Structures are given as C-alpha cells and as structure tokens.
C-alpha cells in the first residue's frame, strides 16, 4: 500500500513539474494555425458556395461570385484596421486575426472564379437571357 502510494505521488509530481519547465502550451504553432485557417475555410467556402445558389439580384448572369467578393472584402477592410494591434498582441489575438483575414475572408473571396466569369464574357457568346 505505502509503496504504491509513494510511486503515485512521485508520478504526479513529475508531471506537475513539466509545465513549469515549459511555459508554452503543448500545441505546436503550426497546428493551431492549421486549425483556425481550416475553420475559416470551412465557413468561407460554404458561404461562397451558398452564394452560388442565391439567385436574383441586379446582374445574376454576369457575376454570381460578386456578392461573396463584396462581403469578404468588407470584413477584411474592417479587420485590417486592427491588424497591427492583433498581430502585435498575444498569441490568441494573432490566431483570431489569422482566422478572420486568412481563413474566413480569403476563403469567402476568390480570384479564380472572377477570372473565369470574366473570361466567359470575352471568349464565349454572352447571352443575357
């Protein structure tokens, strides 16, 4: 009984010592960045795909992606005003900014689809009907 109790306390002590020697969290920086960027990308991509199904509006035939562009750019415009403070701040603030700017806004907006839709106008017969 006593012997086993001693070993248990010894293990607990050794585990408790570890955080003291390593004040950082056990998670790698890259893992956390991956997590927040993925979360932003899930949300952003679903918003953008959702806009694909959003019919109506001023010019549905030319730019299905334009609503998403405007939304993402407006959010990034607001977020960019806080960029210096957040990126210079503590770790969680950096992750917050990466989540909003890189993950969310970057995924809501897209450059490629815009290029595609512009190209469609030039190289193919454009039919507004």
């Amino acid at each position, binding site marked *: 009984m006593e012997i086993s109790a001693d070993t248990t306390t010894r293990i607990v002590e050794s585990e408790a010592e570890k955080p003291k020697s390593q004040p950082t969290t056990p998670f790698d920086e890259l893992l956390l960045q991956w997590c927040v960027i993925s979360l932003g990308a*899930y949300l952003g991509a679903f918003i953008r795909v959702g806009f694909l199904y959003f019919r109506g509006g001023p010019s549905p035939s030319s730019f299905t992606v334009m609503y998403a562009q405007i939304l993402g750019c407006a959010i990034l415009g607001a977020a960019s005003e806080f960029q210096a403070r957040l990126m210079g*701040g*503590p770790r969680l603030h950096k992750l917050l900014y990466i989540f909003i700017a890189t993950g969310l806004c970057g995924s809501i907006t897209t450059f*490629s689809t815009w*290029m595609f839709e512009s190209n469609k106008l030039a190289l*193919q*017969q454009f*039919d507004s009907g």
Partner: protein
Amino acid sequence: MGFSYNLGRVLQWLMALWEGFILPLAALHAGQHASQWYKGWRPLDPPAPQGAPIPSWHSGAEWAILIIYLACTGLVIGLPLYFGWDFLAWTATLGSLGAYLRFRLAPYNKAPPALPNWSCCGPLRALISFLDIGAGRFPAGTFTANSLGTLVLAVATWASKFRVSYHDLPTQSLLFGVSMGFAGCLTTMSTFVLELHTLSRPAGYFYAGASLAISQLWWAMVFESSAVPLSSSVYSTALPPTLSPCALFTAQCNLFLDTLGCPTAQGGGVYRVVKAACPSGGVEDLVGYACSCGGLDVSDRLAGLIIDVQVKGNISSSLVPVFPHPIDTRVEGSASLFGAGMQEPLEAVDYCLSFENLCDHALTRLGCPTDRRAINACNRQGLRHFTGTCTCGAFTVPGLGNGVEGRIPELLIDNLLLRRYDFSKLRGYPTEIRPIDFCGEVSNACRATLEHWMCPPSERSIVSCAIPGDLNTFIGECTCFGRPGPASHRVPQVVMDSFMKPNLFPRFQILPASPGNLFNATSHIDACATLTILCDYLLDSIGCSPRSVSGVYYRTNQQCVGGSGALPPPGASLSPADYTGVCSCGNSPALNKLIRTRLKGYLIDSTLARDFEPYLLIPPPTTPFLLMSSSNSFKQLLSPFYPLPGSNL
C-alpha cells in the same frame, strides 16, 4: 473553336474586369470606415510588450480551438456525406488545404524565397530581383496563390466538362471540390485588393496587371488552345474517313432517284437535279448540294442520312458517355406509347456535352479538319444558352446539325425516345389502325425528353395542342428556358415515327439488301402512290378523320398533280415531276409542315436506310468503316426498322 471576337464582347470583358476591381475595393473601404465606429466606441487593449509571459489561460483556449476544429471537421464531412452532398465535403476539406497553402505562401510577399545556388535558377533569380520582392513592391506569395489557383480551376473546369462523364458523379463531386474548395480558397480577392490599397501606384498597376494577365492566359491556354481538342479522348479510336461525303451524297441521291424511276431529262427540262460541290473533295468545301426530282426535294433529308451512316453505327458501342445504353426496343405494358415506362428513373444526360461530343464525332467521321470545325452547343453555359452550332467550314447546312433543326440534335432526341416505342401495339396495318392521341403522346414524349436533359421542371414549356386532343390547335411547343430548341421540332416527328417506321419497311422493301445488288436499282417504286399510302396511314394514325371529307378535320391527300388521293390501280405510275406533296389535316400550320416534311423522310428511309449495312462494305476494308464489333450490330441498332428473326414484329 468557332468563337468570334467582336468589339462588344471585348468591351464586356473589360467591363467585367473593371467591375471586379471596383466593387471589392469599394467594399474594402466601406469596411475600413465601418471599423472606425467600433474603434471609437471601445478601444482595444494595448499591445502586449515583447517577451511578456503568456498567460496560463491560453492553454485552455487552445484546447478549445483544437476541439472546435475536430468537431467542425467531423460536421463538415459527416453531414454532407449523410445527406449525399459529397461535393460539400470535398469543398470543405480541399478548401482548408488551399487556404493553408495560401497562408504558407504569404511570407513570400515580403521576402523572396531562398533559392539553392544552382545554375538553373538564374532567370528566376533575375526575375526576383527585377520584381524587388524584398522591398515589398510585389506580393509574390499572393500572386503565386492566385495564378496557381486559377490554373487549377481552369484545368478542373475543363476536365469536368470535356473529360469526365456527367454520369460519373463521384468524380464530378471531387472536381467541384477542387474548383470551389481548393482553387476557391487558395485564391483570394480580399488580400489582393488590400495589397492594391497599400502598394504604391506604379507597383500596384504592375501587380494587378500581371495577376490578371497570367490568369487570363491560363484560361486561354486551357480552353482555346488547339493543342487541347474538344473531347478528343472520347473518340480515341476515331478513324479517318474512307470516302468523300460529296461522292456519298451523289451516290445516295442517284440510288434514290433511280429507285423512284425519276427521268434524267424529259422534253428539254431536266427533272433530276443531283449536285454536291466539293472543290477539294473534303466536306469543309461542300458549298452546296441538291437532290431533287421535279418538285420532290430531298436534299436535307439525304444529308441527314449521310450523318446517320457515319454516326448511328457507333451509337451503341463507342459513344458511351453520350449514350449510356444501347438502343433497345423495349415493350412497355401500357396502352400509351410514350406514357408507359415514364415513371422509371430516366438516366440524365448533359445535352450540351452530348451535342458537342456527337458533333465532334460526326465531323471526324466526315473527315472535317480540326481547324475548320465550329462546335458550340450551349456556350458552355447549359441548356439555357443552346445555340447548336455544328459546322465544318462552309458546310453549314441543316443536314449536319447547325441550329435547332439539324441532324445532330435530332439523333440525340432519337437516342432517348427510340427506346420508348411500343411496337406491339402497332401491328396490323393496314387492316387494323389504332389511332393514337397525338397531342397526348407528344406531351408525354416531350416530358420524357426534358427530364432526360435535366431541364428544371419550372423552366419547361410543353404545349402540344392548345386544346388537348384537338389537332387543329397543334403547336408542338417543347422548350426549356423558353428558348427555341431542337425538341419542338423533333419530338413530334419521333412520335410519328413510332407508328410509321415499324410498318414502313416490311411493306416497301423492294431491293434485296445483299452486297451484290447495291446500286443497281432494278425495281422502281411509285413515289406518288407510296406517298399517298403513307399520307393516309399517317393521318389515320394521328386520329385525323378518315379518308373522305367528314368529321372535324378537313383532310387532303394529293401527292402528285393528277393523283386522286385514292390508291392508284396497280401498275399505274405518276411522274415524280408532278409532285405537289399536299398532305394535310385541319388548319394547324405547324402540324401540316410536320406531316409534309416527315412524309418525304419516310419515302427515303424506306428506300435507302435498309441499305446502310451493305453500303458500308463498299469502302476499302483496310480500315473498318464504322466502329462496330460485328456487322450485325448495325442491324440490331436499326431493329425497329429491320425486323430481326425472333422479334415480335
């Protein structure tokens, strides 16, 4: 590819690029201004000093981030898969990959990548120093992400349209994920406009111009380059043509007119007109053709037959992405021809892609050079934008398939509807005629066709007769998105075929279909008498009132001048030069035009179509003419017209 460039289109393109800049840039400014309100209301905490210890509560928040990430990943993969939307699962997973790749490319906006000291990288190093990335004048990371993502989207779009069958839904879902997920998240507009906002003006102009130019270049390279021919892989076994279409047209026309007994000249006037002008022998130079005898002009129909010869034999074997099943004459259980079997799930086809595939195939078979082809089904924008362009140089005749009344769109409709005939209901002509509800059958067949093309139900317009069952009010409208399409023109014809063709060939088979007797028309048929019989049968079958003028519909049947409309006595012959081709029922112009066009087709089909198979043996057999496994498959294809032993006809 037959895309024409004009000023209007170029202006629209520039306008689209301009709008694409202006609106996001304005949105960015709006967001920046909106944030001022938040700043004034509640200032943020001052930034932490450098080297400050991280508070311990952060570890809990980071655990929370990880747990939320895992939970959301499970949701965005599991929920779509549960509902069968695997394209959303691909979008989410590949999207996170693209976004993270963009994040890892971001450092190169400020600092050039460290290149190994190899001799290969001299030009690249020169480019980096020219762009002056280190000075922050060219965000190379965002540039790389945007141009790379655009290339990925171009390749994925091209693959999904031209390389992957529409039926291959798992692969199409993956390609959607690559397009909207990976490429969509890898590229970014928000960072792009933010950089344009902060860069100096010369640097910004250069950066934006370079991004747009290279992206537009990708699209041009992938889609417009002749190095990537349209749908060439579908017909990897495409063979060079073995005879000239002009010679084929001339031979078929002469055979047909011989069979009719058309005189070559009579009293100084030439009745027989056979013309097919191909100055260089190729179909791209076929500037005009004609095949007529007196008033009986069968030019377009004969051109259509030439397409049939080239294409129909391949339908069951090689056009797998277009025609997923070989044509079979399924016998349905209901009294309605096209009503039966409509409840069973129809396989859906991408009509536009099928059109382009079939057109490309037909042009290959006809020997059209690649650079002379103009193929454009729907402007790559779906059925709403159907134009149906399928031409080869000057060869823009309806027989080939240009516009809604061409042969290619007709064959695509046949591919669906021919399977739906119920031939067992139709035996017994002429002793037993069972009139059908023509209006109803056209509606049924139209509904099946539009379902087959994945036309949204809300966009369908099906009006066969304004008053149901009243042939006088026949309109024959069968459109999707309200645009004129091939279905209005072809679907009523196929309904007519369904009861005409099974009876045609047994009755009018005159030439023995043996290889030794191909073009030696020994027997003649009387065109006027034949057309008179056909007209009567057709009008009886669609429910037009019987032979005399009685009942609701005024009915005329006078195929040739001097013809009484009754059956001529055996041996009596009228000259085809006197052809008038009057066969009408009631006063619907659409219906009467349909009847008149169709009757000529039946006359040709009954004479020529059964000769397809031996005709195909004429070219030198060094290369097989059609992509058939055996000579019997073409017979099976034509089995509705060509009763095989053991069939129920």
